[in-house]
């Protein structure tokens, strides 16, 4: 008889990615039907409950405890199984021990000429570590979240004075000298430098530039708060200065959610007064600004990552741009064709969109586009506070969810690595007879799940089957932020998704447009034309 057992290890810590790996290994042990090894946060306990893996022992665990949840064929060999799990917990990693250190000092002693550090420890501990690094003139990519704002300000002021980069906190991505730091893609090198206060914004931008046949010099992620008043754009400005002085960089792109107005002014004024190169701005969801006379012809303002990438390529090479437009970014006739085919398969009742995103900037951009086309939508991170979901686990009407937010990630790996939360949600959404379209972003590259498309196959098939058995057709749209050179290979991921009946769109903006057309159930060509002119090309 199958039974569920929980074992709690008090005050025992492993990082969320290690635990995900351990869970996968535990599932392979003979006699184990299912397994999850997680820290005892409320969210993890809730998910264990949903997966039928929680017992009273697990319920009593706290944030600092580890829960080993096992579903086994019978209880006779449970001790033996547990022993094997314990062994996994203490087993050394596959990598050689000589590159592992237990203090920063000894690591720096071993790599004396270290020039950059990637810091991904819990945010409250980051300050002391980063201070030590800056003291030694080491640039920092600070992946951690929950770094107190005052620490960020302090660290960035010191770094700015010293001419060092502090990329983050909460910077998911950076590409330095072609090396992917954090979550990042394998993209072409080329003449475009990008500074972004938006993690998946940087990924989508660099991927699209690369697909369009151009490439990037450096991708500097600075963290979302950099462009807000308290931090004052310190690292954005420092990056602009560096790009302006860098002989390889010909075009500079600035990508972010709306900056604070004073910071936006500061950035634009700096560009007016101190620069000579060409610029693309992409303040997604921000107000359009009057382009200063001195910048006319060398600064392009854009509203989407799609437009930003195309315009950056255009500033590099007009011919490349024309080819890219035709090759990569679908003309409106194609989008209309896709939408019409799907509309014809839906019932009258099916009218809502459910966006299940892993990328924060992609969630945000989708909402900005929806606002233009179909109005405000519900979210855990809404543009309009009135559309805040009262329960983030239950969608209302049109809903767009950022599954990378705290409420879905406390004590667990990010959904780009661990798709469990999205798989459960996808099946849930399929049960709603009013849902017409589900949107999925697949952000691949270094850091992400090794094969997210395959990991989603069962849930996609299940979702489609639930709808079919109820006499409905469920449209699933996807966009892959990734390249063919990424370890997961974007093309292969696309083939896998298409084989399951998923429609794959070439940019996040086009996925949002297609979804909006399907949900509206009518094709308004004038409106689509306006969207193409305003959202998919830039303004000089």
């Amino acid at each position, binding site marked *: 008889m199958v039974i569920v057992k929980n074992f709690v290890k008090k005050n025992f810590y492993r*990082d969320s990615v*290690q635990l995900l790996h351990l869970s996968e290994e535990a599932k392979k042990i003979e006699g184990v039907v299912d397994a999850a090894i997680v820290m005892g946060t409320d969210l993890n306990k809730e998910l264990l409950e949903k997966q039928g893996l929680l017992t009273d022992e697990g319920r009593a665990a706290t944030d600092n405890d580890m829960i080993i949840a096992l579903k086994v064929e019978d209880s006779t060999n449970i001790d033996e199984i547990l022993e094997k799990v314990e062994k996994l917990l203490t087993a050394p990693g596959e990598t050689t021990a000589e590159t592992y*250190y237990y203090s920063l000092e000894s690591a720096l002693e071993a790599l004396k000429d270290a020039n950059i550090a*990637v810091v991904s*420890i819990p945010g409250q501990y980051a300050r002391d570590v980063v201070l030590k690094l800056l003291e030694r003139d080491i640039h920092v990519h600070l992946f951690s979240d929950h770094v107190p704002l005052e620490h960020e300000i302090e660290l960035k002021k010191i770094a700015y004075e010293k*001419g060092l980069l502090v990329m983050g906190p909460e910077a998911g991505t950076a590409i330095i*000298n072609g090396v992917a*730091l954090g979550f990042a893609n394998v993209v072409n090198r080329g003449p475009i430098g990008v500074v972004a206060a938006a993690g998946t914004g940087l990924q989508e931008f660099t991927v699209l530039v690369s697909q369009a046949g151009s490439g990037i010099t450096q991708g500097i992620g600075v963290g979302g708060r950099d462009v807000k008043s308290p931090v004052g754009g310190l690292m954005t400005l420092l990056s602009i200065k560096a790009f302006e002085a860098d002989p390889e960089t010909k075009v500079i792109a600035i990508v972010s959610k709306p900056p604070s107005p004073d910071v936006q002014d500061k950035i634009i004024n700096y560009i007016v007064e101190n620069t000579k190169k060409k610029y693309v701005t992409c303040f997604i969801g921000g107000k359009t600004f009057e382009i200063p006379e001195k910048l006319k012809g060398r600064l392009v303002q854009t509203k989407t990552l799609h437009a930003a990438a195309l315009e950056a390529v255009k500033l590099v090479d007009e011919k490349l741009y024309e080819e890219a437009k035709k090759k990569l970014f679908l003309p409106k006739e194609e989008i209309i064709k896709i939408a019409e085919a799907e509309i014809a398969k839906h019932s009258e009742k099916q009218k809502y969109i459910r966006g299940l995103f892993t990328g924060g900037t992609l969630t945000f951009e989708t909402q900005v586009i929806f606002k233009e086309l179909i109005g405000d939508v519900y979210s855990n991170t809404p543009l309009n506070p009135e559309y805040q979901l009262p329960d983030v686990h239950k969608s209302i009407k049109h809903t767009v969810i950022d599954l990378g937010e705290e409420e879905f990630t406390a004590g667990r790996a990010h959904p780009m690595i661990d798709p469990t939360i999205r798989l459960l949600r996808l099946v849930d959404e399929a049960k709603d007879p009013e849902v017409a379209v589900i949107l999925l972003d697949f952000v691949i590259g270094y850091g992400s799940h090794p094969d997210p498309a395959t990991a989603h196959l069962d849930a996609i098939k299940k979702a489609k089957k639930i709808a079919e058995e109820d006499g409905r057709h469920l449209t699933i749209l996807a966009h892959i932020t990734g390249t063919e050179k990424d370890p997961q290979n974007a093309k292969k991921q696309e083939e896998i998704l298409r084989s399951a009946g998923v429609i794959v769109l070439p940019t996040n903006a086009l996925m949002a447009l297609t979804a909006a057309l399907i949900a509206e159930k009518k094709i308004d060509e004038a409106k689509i034309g306006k969207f193409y002119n305003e959202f998919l090309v830039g303004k000089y």
Partner: protein
Amino acid sequence: MVEKILKLFKSELKVVNIGLEFFYKSLKDQNVKAVHVVWQPPPKIEKDLQDILGKIL
């Protein structure tokens, strides 16, 4: 003031990874020179003990 950044742009990356081990593995997969610092949270001290220590120290 951007000399150190321009120097970084021209240098081979040598990375210290502190925290998530899988970022270190990503760097190794890219054949980047890197070392990994195994990080553990400082041991949790109960509040009453912390108060006593606070008085003594």
